[in-house]
């Protein structure tokens, strides 16, 4: 990896993780959505630094959509019945998850690094998606369809109930 990619990787890593932490602590939907968009920008930058340009473009669009959904002013607040102690326990659990996975990552340096940077590779990824892994692509397409239909149906049922 050349120095430009390395700088891009570290900057994107800082942006993505920093944006994620801001999502946790910023009050207000608009700020949370903006923080998620910043984090998505960082994740797209990480993909680009890892020579996964098409995935970066897809991530940029998808995370922008997620940020718009999270920042939207019209969805209902659903308060969790879980108390503060259990939320703190969840935070400690997230820290423990980080420790375990970080240890696994530290022990994962077992493959040789080769640089395969360059092109966006849309044609090659399209071939993999629709020829080699067509079932996985169909599954994600079905998930998107179910999610959109389910979201619309749930929204309409609630509106009709009022």
């Amino acid at each position, binding site marked *: 990896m*050349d120095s430009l990619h*390395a700088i891009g990787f*570290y900057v994107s*890593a800082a942006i993505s*993780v920093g944006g*994620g932490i801001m*999502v*946790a602590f910023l009050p207000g*939907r608009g700020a*949370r959505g903006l923080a998620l968009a910043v*984090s998505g920008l960082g994740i797209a930058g*990480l*993909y680009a630094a*890892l*020579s*996964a340009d*098409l*995935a970066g473009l897809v*991530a940029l669009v*998808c*995370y922008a*959509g*997620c940020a718009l*959904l*999270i920042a939207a*002013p019209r*969805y*209902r*607040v*659903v*308060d*969790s019945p879980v108390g503060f102690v259990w*939320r703190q326990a*969840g935070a400690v659990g*997230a*820290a423990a998850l*980080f420790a375990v*996975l*970080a240890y696994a*990552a530290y022990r994962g*340096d077992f*493959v*040789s*690094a*080769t640089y395969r940077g360059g092109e966006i590779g849309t044609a090659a*990824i399209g071939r*993999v*998606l629709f020829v080699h892994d067509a079932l996985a*692509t169909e599954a*994600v397409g079905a*998930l*998107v369809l179910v999610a*959109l239909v*389910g*979201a*619309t149906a*749930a*929204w309409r049922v*609630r*509106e009709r109930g009022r």
Partner: protein
Amino acid sequence: MSPGLVAVLFVGVALVAVGAFVATWKRDLSAALAGLPLIFGGAGVAFAGAARFSAASDPKIFGQEVAALLAVAALALVALGVGIAGRGTSR
């Protein structure tokens, strides 16, 4: 210093942990949905990094593919969650 596989996996792990933290810490379950894209993004970064640094012939396409699918799945799940939450007052 050029980042290697461990650095990439470390960033992916950090994103997954931050996403899990967001999902557990937010009192509003609709806001906790914001943790999902972070978790999926961390997994995607790990996939892309493992494919990028693997020694096999041309595996980087596979990592890109999974990363793209994870991003789409994250968007779909957030849309579903927000739709299930329904309309209401903002906070």
